[in-house]
C-alpha cells in the first residue's frame, strides 16, 4: 500500500488526557491501574479508570448532543477535545468536504453501561425507563453516529466491533476507502468504557487477574481492564508544509478459525496478520525497530503471541506490552497502542513493559522491561481479539 499520512492523533486513558500526559507517564514508567472499585463493583482485579468521567460536569456533552449521553460518549467527547484533534478534523472537513471524511471507529461494548443501569430501573410492567435511548447509547454504531455528529461530518460511518482488534482494523478500512477514492480522509480510533458486562464477564472466564497484569511474567494470571478513547486522522495527503504525526505503512488482518476465546496455540492467525502487514508495507522483518505487543498477560495469549512474533522476527526486535500501564482497553486497545507507537516514533523511546517481576523463561522474544531510547523508523502494533480476530499495523515516521 502507499504510505498514508496520519495527520493528527490523540488519546485519553487512565494515564491521563492527551499526548503530553502519556509522554510523561511513559517516561516515568507510571501505571494508571488500581484495585477494582467501579460503582458498586469490588472485584479482585485491577482497572484503569479515566477519572474525569466521574467528576461531575468535566466531560459533559453540550445540550445539542445530550441525547447521546452515556459514559462511552462522554469519554469520546473528552478524547476528541485533547491535542486540538477536533480542530484538526474541522480543517480536514474544510479541505476535503464533510461528505468526503469517513468516521470508522472501534468499540466492544459501546454504551452498554447505560443499559445495565436502565435494567435496574425497569417499571412494574418490566419496561425500560422512558429516558433510555437505545439508538444513541446502546447500539454498537452509536459511537460512530455520535462522533460523526459531534465533528459535523457526513461521510461513510461505521463501527468495527471485533472485540479487542476493533480499533486496529479501522485503520485498514480507512486505508481501503481512501485508496478506492471513495473518501479523502477518515477519523479512526476506538472508545471503550468500563461496564459491568466486561468486569464480570472477564472474571467469569477467569481471565481478570487478581493482581495487576504482568505481561511476559512467569506468574502472569490474566488481564487488567481499562477504558480509553484514541483517535487518529488519516488524510490522502498532509496539508502543504505540515508534518504529519506519522504514517500508516501497512496493515494485516486474519482469523484464527480456532476457538472463540482462546488464541491458536502456535499463533497461526497472528503470524499471518504480521506477515500480511509486512507484505503490504513492502518491508522485510528486519525493517521493524520495535513491536507494541497485544500482550494482555493471560497465560495463553502471551505464550501464543510470543511464538507468533518469534516465528516472524526471531528474538531480534525489542517488544513490549503497554497494557501494564493502561490496562486492556478492549475495543479501544488497537487505537491506543497505535497512538502510543506514534509517540514512540516521534520521541525515539520504546516503552518498557511494566509490572514484570520474573520473565517467563518459556517465552523467547526480546521483551523489553525498561524504557530504551533509540532512533525508531518503523514499529509494528498487534491487536488480537475474541472470535480469533487478528490485526497488525505498521507505523512509520
Amino acid at each position, binding site marked *: 500500500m502507499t504510505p498514508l499520512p496520519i495527520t493528527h492523533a490523540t488519546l485519553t486513558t487512565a494515564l491521563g488526557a492527551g499526548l503530553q500526559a502519556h509522554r510523561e507517564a511513559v517516561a516515568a514508567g507510571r501505571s494508571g491501574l488500581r484495585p477494582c472499585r467501579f460503582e458498586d463493583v469490588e472485584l479482585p482485579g485491577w482497572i484503569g479508570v479515566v477519572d474525569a468521567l466521574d467528576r461531575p460536569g468535566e466531560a459533559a456533552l453540550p445540550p445539542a448532543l445530550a441525547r447521546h449521553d452515556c459514559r462511552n460518549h462522554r469519554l469520546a467527547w473528552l478524547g476528541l477535545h485533547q491535542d486540538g484533534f477536533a480542530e484538526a478534523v474541522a480543517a480536514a472537513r*474544510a*479541505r*476535503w*468536504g*464533510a*461528505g*468526503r471524511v469517513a468516521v470508522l471507529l472501534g468499540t*466492544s461494548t459501546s454504551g452498554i453501561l447505560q*443499559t*445495565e443501569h436502565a*435494567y*435496574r430501573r*425497569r417499571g412494574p410492567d*418490566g*419496561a*425500560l425507563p422512558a429516558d433510555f435511548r*437505545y*439508538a444513541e447509547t*446502546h*447500539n*454498537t*454504531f*452509536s459511537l*460512530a453516529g455520535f462522533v460523526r455528529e459531534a465533528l459535523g461530518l*457526513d*461521510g*461513510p*460511518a*461505521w*463501527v*468495527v*466491533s*471485533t472485540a479487542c482488534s476493533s480499533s486496529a482494523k479501522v485503520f485498514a*478500512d480507512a486505508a*481501503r*476507502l481512501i*485508496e*478506492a*477514492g*471513495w473518501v*479523502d480522509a477518515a477519523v479512526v480510533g476506538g472508545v471503550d468504557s468500563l461496564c459491568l*458486562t466486561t468486569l*464480570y*464477564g472477564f472474571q*467469569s*472466564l477467569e481471565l481478570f487477574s487478581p493482581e495487576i497484569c504482568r505481561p511476559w511474567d512467569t506468574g502472569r494470571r490474566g488481564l487488567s481492564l481499562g477504558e480509553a478513547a484514541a483517535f487518529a486522522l488519516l488524510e490522502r495527503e498532509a496539508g502543504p508544509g505540515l508534518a504529519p504525526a506519522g504514517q500508516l505503512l501497512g496493515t494485516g488482518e*486474519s*482469523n*484464527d*478459525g480456532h476457538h*472463540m*476465546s482462546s488464541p491458536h496455540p502456535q499463533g*497461526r*492467525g497472528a503470524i*499471518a496478520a504480521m506477515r500480511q502487514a509486512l507484505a503490504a508495507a513492502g518491508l522485510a522483518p528486519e525493517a521493524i525497530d520495535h513491536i507494541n505487543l497485544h500482550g494482555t498477560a493471560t497465560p495463553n495469549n502471551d505464550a501464543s503471541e510470543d511464538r507468533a512474533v518469534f516465528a516472524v522476527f526471531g528474538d531480534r526486535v525489542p517488544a513490549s506490552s503497554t497494557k501494564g500501564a493502561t490496562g486492556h482497553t478492549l475495543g479501544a486497545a488497537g487505537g491506543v497502542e497505535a497512538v502510543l507507537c506514534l509517540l514512540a516514533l516521534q520521541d525515539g523511546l520504546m516503552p518498557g513493559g511494566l509490572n514484570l517481576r520474573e520473565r517467563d523463561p518459556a517465552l523467547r522474544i526480546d521483551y523489553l522491561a525498561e524504557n530504551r531510547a533509540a532512533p525508531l523508523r518503523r514499529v509494528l502494533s498487534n491487536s488480537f*481479539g*475474541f*472470535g*480469533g*480476530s487478528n490485526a497488525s499495523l505498521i507505523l512509520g515516521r
Partner: protein
Amino acid sequence: MMTTTVTGATIRADLLGLGLIGPGLPSWDAAQAVLRGEAAADTAERTVVPAPMRLPPAERRRAGAAIRIALAAAEAACAHAEADPATLATVFTSSSGDGANCHALCETLAAEDPAARLVSPTRFTNSVHNAASGYWHIAVGSPEASTSLCGFDGSFAAGLVAALTQLRPDAAPVLLVASDTPYPEPLHATRPLPDTMGVALLLAPAGPGEARCWLGAALLPAERAGAPTRCRDAGLEALRQAIPAAQALPLLEALARRLPAVVVLPVSPAQSLRLVLEFPA
C-alpha cells in the same frame, strides 16, 4: 476552496452467489417469484432459521439466533456459488448482536447484590459483536480476514462498502453477510425489529470467470447518485423499512429480474452507493 479530489471511482465486482432467509422469503430460490413481482410477498410468514449443522456439536449448542441466521445465510451463498468457504474472507454486518443473549446478561447484572451477578462465561463470550464471524471461521476453517460491522439502520450499506473496497485480484473473494434478529422485551420496545433476516453476497473482483451478475459500484454525493431505490413490492418495501438487513431487498429484486438496472443505496446523509448491474447472457 476545496482540494480537487478523486471522485466517483468505480469498483467492478463479480457476484458469485447469494443467500437469503427472511419473513416469507425462505431461500433465494424460493423467493424468486416474489422478488420478480410474479407473486405477492407474504412477509407475515415467520422466518425459519435452519440449525447450523456445520458447527461442531458443542458450538452448535452455544449458538443463539443471531449466530444461526448469519451462518445460515453465509452457508446458502457459498452453496449457491459452489465456493469453498475455507478460502473466503468475510464481512459480517448487523445492526445488533445477539439480543436474547444481551438481555440475559443485563438481567443478571441488574441484581442488587453484587454477589448474585453470576455471568455465564458462554454468554459473555457470545456477547461480542463478532460472535457469528468467530463461529463461522471455526466451522469452515477459514484463516482469511474477517470483520464485523455495525451501521445501525445502514448496516447493509456499510458492509457492502467495506466488502467492495476489500476486493483485490490477489486476495480471497469476500463473503458479505448482513443479518438481524429481534430483541426480546424490554429492549424490543426500544428497537422493534419485527423478525429475523439474513442476506449474504459472495463478491469477487471483476474477472474472466463465471459470475451471476457484474456490478459496477461508485460512492457518490447523494444528489448525483439519485433517489434511493425502493422495493417494487409493497410488502418487501415495508420489510425494507423495518429490518436493516432488508435494505438489501431492492438489490435482490434487481438481481432476481436479471435485467440491466441501477440500484441506489444510501450510505450516509451525504453519500450514496450507485450500483450498476449487468448480467451474462
